[in-house]
């Protein structure tokens, strides 16, 4: 069973530290999650374009020697604000899921309080 992932949040997280091109984002998500998460590669670019249109990402073509240029995506201030929102939302969601899946922990937490 798997929870539906928020690909937009993952992308924002992947480019938060440094700009990445499309394949780099896929790699960051895959390796950062120890292979637990895998971005739908074909779905990634349309989402990147949409995020660019929303102003969450800024993109620029980076020339490569002897190879076609690649588009590098960088997070914007608006994107950082959105990422902060998504983090909050995820924290709330995961807390809720944890409290259902691990009721013992919940009781202990309440007892300690």
């Amino acid at each position, binding site marked *: 069973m798997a929870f539906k992932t928020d690909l937009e949040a993952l992308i924002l997280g992947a480019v938060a530290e440094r700009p990445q091109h499309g394949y780099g984002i*896929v790699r960051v998500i895959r390796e950062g999650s120890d292979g637990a998460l895998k971005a739908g*590669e074909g779905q990634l670019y*349309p989402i990147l374009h949409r995020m660019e249109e929303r102003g969450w990402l800024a993109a620029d073509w980076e020339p490569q020697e002897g190879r076609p*240029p690649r588009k590098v995506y960088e997070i914007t201030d608006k994107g950082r604000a959105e990422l902060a929102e998504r983090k909050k939302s995820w924290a709330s969601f995961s807390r809720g899921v944890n409290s259902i899946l691990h009721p013992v922990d919940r009781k202990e937490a309440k007892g300690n309080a």
Partner: protein
Amino acid sequence: MRDYIAWYLIELRRRLRNVEPQQKVEDFLLETRTHLQESIEEMGARGILEDAATKSAIADFGHPSLVAHAFRGRRSLPSWSYWSTVLLVVLLLSPMAYQVVFSLGDVHLGAGRIAYFEFGWYIIGGLAAILVMTLLWRRWSALPITVGLAGVALVSGLVISGKVEPYKSPLSETILLMDDASAKKQAANRARWLEAYERSIVPMKRAIETHGSNPTSEFGKAIIGENEMPLFPAIGYSGHQRASSILPAEYEREGMGDWIPFDRSSATFILRSTFDKEEATKAWIRNGEQFFAYAESVRNDVAVEREALSKPVEVARGQVLQRLVGGPLLLIGFCGLVGVLVNAMVIGGSEGWSALLRREWRRQLN
């Protein structure tokens, strides 16, 4: 390797050929190629053979139709569904457009033909507006533009039309569709035509009023006796066509317009086939009554046309603007707004209203 990637990109491009702007599609294809190449290289570094790596990279990227679908950001409505929606909207609008065109003009001669002509353009304009709005409306950011365009068309139509019912015109529909010079020429031709037409009716009506429509009367006997068939005019049948083609002098000399249609109800047929003068007389009277009724309606038409022709042509020009610009703009504006709604509700896909509401609903649930 290159063959597989080339094939994949061709398939993807084919599925995105109608997506605008195409530059965005080209960027996407370039990114896809770079992505696939990097993916293959990475697998190659892990020792996977190039052929297998290529196939794997393409498989990971996804089927071209799914990728194209995601790129378009539209719900996967099949084309028949899309076109039937458009058709439905057009069909719903047609009666309204029909009413707009036909209910507001009160000139009879030639009106139907011209109105149909305009009606066709109105529908084409409305359909084009819906399609343009459909093409333009791909994301929420385009909504102000599309609504703005439709709104401008609607308001311009209202302003140009001047009022809600701008089409009431005493002028002939034919004149309305012409420029100044053509309108004057047409007016002169029509005046001549009317004169010939009226000239053909007046003597006939006077003759019938004087002699009656009875074939046994002096008038009827003269006609039947001399010609063995009544030379009763049948203006309603094709008299006006003849009137327009025959010069007034010749028409006056002929004096009768066209022959009555030779059918089983005519006095001629009865007389020739049965020699029953009583029945023939009844038919003669019946035909005469029909002629009287028709002559009256024609006289009314002629009066309307004469009044129309007495108005200056400049009036027509203003109404050309109303009819040819104001009316279509109104309809285009209206259809454009309908197009926006259809897009928003049905075709907008992931950016459409329904999708937005679903997202908002999910957000609320979270």
